[in-house]
């Protein structure tokens, strides 16, 4: 479903150019659960942002399904981002003073989707927060806030859920709980998840691990021969 070919992302900071991604090729199929690991600065977040259409590659090709999305205009990217991807960040990124229900409704507002209340409530039920619907972030624990963020990304039924160190700010037990929730969503509902993590413990939940260094993939436990040769299986 996701096909990256020789994707590069270069930041020019003054005279020097930073190669955050230096030619990444990666294919991810529907229903996969991929963990991306690597040292700090190896380009993990940059890769996630490009996959999630928050950022665009400076070189290379990105196809989503059959569609080339590497040179999509900004507005089209925004719409596709809203419908196709769900983000979960280390720092939750919830809006202040809004109830859980309103947070989860937000992506649906920008889609102009009908039946928003009900769908948002259902998403909160899926993450086990049925009794926290009216709570604002300051009234929720870190784990609960992260589950609100998860519900917000699930409510649009995304093609891919992108989680950038989702357990980074949580204690081990709460992190473990979140991972079990994610695993259940992959197993029971066929969700596709790409997860960035530093912790090997967390990565064990994934079926496939991609290791990065200096903007390149150095190891991929699920790599298929076709990927590097330019295959188009999705």
């Amino acid at each position, binding site marked *: 479903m996701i096909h990256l070919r020789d994707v590069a992302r270069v930041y020019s900071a003054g005279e020097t150019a930073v190669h955050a991604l230096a030619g990444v090729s990666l294919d991810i199929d529907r229903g996969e659960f991929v963990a991306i690991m690597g040292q700090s600065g190896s380009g993990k977040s940059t890769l996630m*942002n490009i996959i*999630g259409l*928050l*950022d665009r590659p400076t070189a290379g090709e990105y196809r989503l399904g059959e569609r080339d999305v590497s040179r999509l205009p*900004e*507005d089209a990217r*925004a*719409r596709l*981002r*809203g*419908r196709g991807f769900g*983000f979960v*960040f280390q*720092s939750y*990124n*919830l*809006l*202040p*003073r809004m109830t859980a229900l309103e947070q989860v409704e*937000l*992506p649906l*507002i*920008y*889609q*102009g989707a009908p039946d928003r209340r009900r769908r948002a409530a259902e998403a909160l039920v899926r993450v086990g927060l049925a009794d926290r619907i009216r709570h604002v972030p300051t009234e929720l624990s870190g784990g609960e806030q992260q589950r609100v963020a998860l519900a*917000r990304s699930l409510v*649009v039924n995304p093609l891919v859920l992108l989680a950038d160190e989702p357990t980074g700010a949580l204690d081990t037990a709460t992190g473990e709980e979140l991972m079990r929730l994610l695993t259940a969503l992959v197993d029971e509902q066929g969700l596709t998840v790409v997860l960035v993590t530093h912790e090997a413990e967390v990565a064990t939940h994934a079926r496939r691990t991609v290791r990065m260094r200096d903007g390149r993939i150095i190891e991929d436990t699920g790599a298929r021969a076709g990927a590097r040769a330019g295959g188009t299986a999705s």
Partner: protein
Amino acid sequence: MSLADAFRITLRAIFANRLRSALTSLGLVIGVSSVIVLIAVGQGTQQGVTDRIHGLGTDLIFIESSRAATTSQAGGIAGLAETTLFQGDAEAIEAAGIPGVVAVAAQVSVEAHAVAGSENVGVEAVATSSRYADVRDLEVASGTFITPRDDEGRGLVAVIGSRVAETLYPEVEPVGQEVRLSFVGGRLILPFTVIGVLEEQGGANEVNDQVFVSLEGMAQRLRFLFTPTGDVRVTRIDVQTASGIDEDRVKEDISNVLLYRREAIEPDFTIQSQDDLLKAATEVSTTLSILLGSIAGISLLVGGIGVMNIMLVSVTERTREIGIRRAVGATAADIVKQFVMEALTLSLFGGIAGIAIGVGLSVAVDGRELGGQQLTMLIQPWSVVAAFFVAAGVGLASGSYPAYRATTIDPIAALRME
């Protein structure tokens, strides 16, 4: 995103920061209300002046000396020696038989204090002839106006306006009573016999506060009013013309009569019709309105800058929020919509409150005295409509740039912010 959703987001943001929103709107409240109040003052003043000019009567032409000061300016008698206008001029105009001229009356008007018993009141004393009643269409409620016999005699007779009569003689019939007029701060006091009381005049009519005395009688007491040739100096000559005549033609005929009398080419007098006065007054008050309007406009501008300033701060503060909204699918247009609508709503709140306050204030002070002047407020519907649209325009203008700035925020950087 639908407009209703955008408006819901706007209201949330505004109510989340109630005090700041109120203070932001305050600039526009002040701007809009002052536009409405100042335009109402300007237009009200114009209306007042216009009413006074109409109150003089209809189809009048006024001749004044271009040298002597009028009563209100000189405040006394001293300036009268300077005047270049005479009782003889009035008689000459009448005698010339100019077509369209109905009646002519010369006058000397000075400020005075009228005293009767223990009562006293400030008045304008008008020394004139019996013709004045015809010129100004004056009717007496009791007694008579100055008679042709008074025009010749030395008698000190007075005809008083209705309000003067009420103040001086609350109990008794004024006709036959004595009224003393005190000029130049009491240095000259003359006793007059009241021979008539004028009917009350409606509207902004000065006649109610005037006292009419015979010009000849006055001149006999104030000898300096006489010229060496026995003519009497006056400050003004009023000419009543037939309606529907060519005013410019009459003015020219009068001018010729006066120039012939003077054996002069250059006039030392001015001739103005009521229309001329109206035009001049309208010009003055239009200038006044524009001036007041621009002052108010500046406060609107300042209000708009205030809105823009707060919107810029707000965009910076909400960088992270903008990043989150972009991540869940907000387009640049959605972000613009949000911030422009917020600025617009703040401005319209301010505009509507400003309209309410401006109209309320105008109504409240209408008719009250300010520094001895009665305030007439005339609220112009167009000024209310214009203020509303200007407020909307200010909102759009001051929201556009901050909204544009919001779209240039990099969502990745915004999301990483702590």
